[in-house]
């Protein structure tokens, strides 16, 4: 009767499906991707602002012999720089939150808690075995030496299964809860950085891609009117400045494109994670999970069986 009770208890505890090793690995792989992600969009705002300031300074240089207008222009540029920097600081918030989310997924999927349980219950088992040996030295009816090991294994098995059950539920709940939020955030990032335009509060705004193109055009126009139109003799410095600034715009556009590509990979990693965790229909996963459970349960059962002989 006691044998049946132990096995039934073990089966009941493990009745709720737990995450497989491959699913836990998927979570950790996604979290590692998120943690290593370093292509943040604020660099685009900062660089675009720097290039805009360059264009503004070109315009300011048109105020020849007019100190008052020149000082006004400088003040306007300084005000712009301050505001742009403040806006740039806000560009990374959502990605940083996604990184925090993925760090917590890693923490919640860690095996270290159940491993620690193993260490504690091993020590318990060793102590119990020592006690039994001491007792048996004094009495004629001996207690089986393996009873200490049996008790520690039972504690470990039950503790581990209960823990894994709680862990699985928590992970699934949070993955489902995070799915919509993260997809919205990643879609918004793509829209802001890579589309023709986006809408917020009913107003259409240009995307970062469009703004880089527009700023580049604006620089070409202003440089042509203020600098190149006023050169009467060949001016190497002026041409070099023009060339190098256009190169900076090209680099900025490449950086934008790289960030969009890496966001795409990030989105794909997340989609794989959600699909893998919510789809527990793969036979190989179910078989592996069942085999792990059977092995653990059998180990405890065998030890107790010997004890009850």
């Amino acid at each position: 009767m006691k044998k049946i009770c132990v096995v039934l208890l073990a089966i009941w505890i493990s009745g709720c499906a737990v995450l497989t090793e491959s699913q836990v690995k998927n979570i950790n792989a996604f979290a590692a991707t998120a943690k290593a992600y370093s292509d943040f969009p604020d660099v685009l705002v900062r660089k675009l602002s720097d290039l805009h300031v360059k264009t503004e300074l070109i315009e300011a240089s048109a105020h020849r012999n007019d100190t008052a207008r020149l000082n006004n222009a400088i003040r306007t540029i300084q005000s712009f720089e301050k505001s742009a920097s403040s806006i740039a600081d806000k560009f990374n918030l959502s990605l940083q939150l996604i990184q925090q989310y993925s760090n917590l997924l890693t923490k919640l999927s860690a095996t270290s808690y159940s491993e620690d349980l193993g260490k504690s219950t091993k020590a318990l088992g060793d102590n119990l075995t020592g006690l039994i040996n001491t007792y048996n030295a004094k009495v004629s009816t001996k207690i089986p030496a393996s009873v200490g090991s049996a008790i520690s294994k039972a504690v470990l098995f039950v503790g581990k299964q209960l823990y894994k059950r709680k862990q699985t539920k928590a992970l699934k709940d949070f993955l489902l809860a995070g799915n919509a939020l993260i997809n919205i955030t990643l879609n918004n990032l793509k829209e802001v950085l890579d589309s023709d335009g986006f809408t917020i509060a009913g107003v259409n705004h240009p995307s970062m891609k469009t703004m880089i193109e527009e700023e580049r055009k604006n620089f070409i126009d202003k440089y042509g009117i203020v600098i190149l139109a006023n050169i009467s003799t060949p001016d190497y410095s002026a041409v070099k400045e023009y060339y190098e600034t256009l190169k900076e715009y090209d680099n900025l556009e490449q950086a934008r494109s790289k960030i969009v590509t890496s966001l795409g990979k990030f989105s794909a990693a997340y989609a794989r994670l959600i699909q893998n965790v919510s789809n527990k229909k793969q036979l190989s996963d179910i078989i592996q999970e069942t085999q792990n459970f059977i092995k653990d349960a059998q180990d405890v059962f065998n030890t107790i069986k010997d004890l009850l002989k």
Partner: protein
Amino acid sequence: MNTEVLNTLKQVRQLENEVLAKMNDATLTDDERSLLGSVQNKLSEIDNILLLDSLQAMANKLNESNIGLQDLISKMQATSDKLAQFSNTVKKVADVVGALTEIIMKGASVGLIA
């Protein structure tokens, strides 16, 4: 897609170009140059406001889901703490029983416990 904001920005910049081109005229009087300079200052301010407005709109769009994400993260942290507590409780049970058996074992070995 030419948005309203972008169209306005383009118009402002077109005007800036015309003003700057006029400022190249060497025959301008000081007063005329000063007037054009004032117009250029104002257009530059408007240009900056429109650009900043677009950048702010981008930031706002990116941060639309932040409150939901922060709320979710708080819940995850609380759950993580609870799981750690559960694990600690099981460990304490094992540790306490282990310590007890050690005491009993030592007592038995020196004859304090029969």
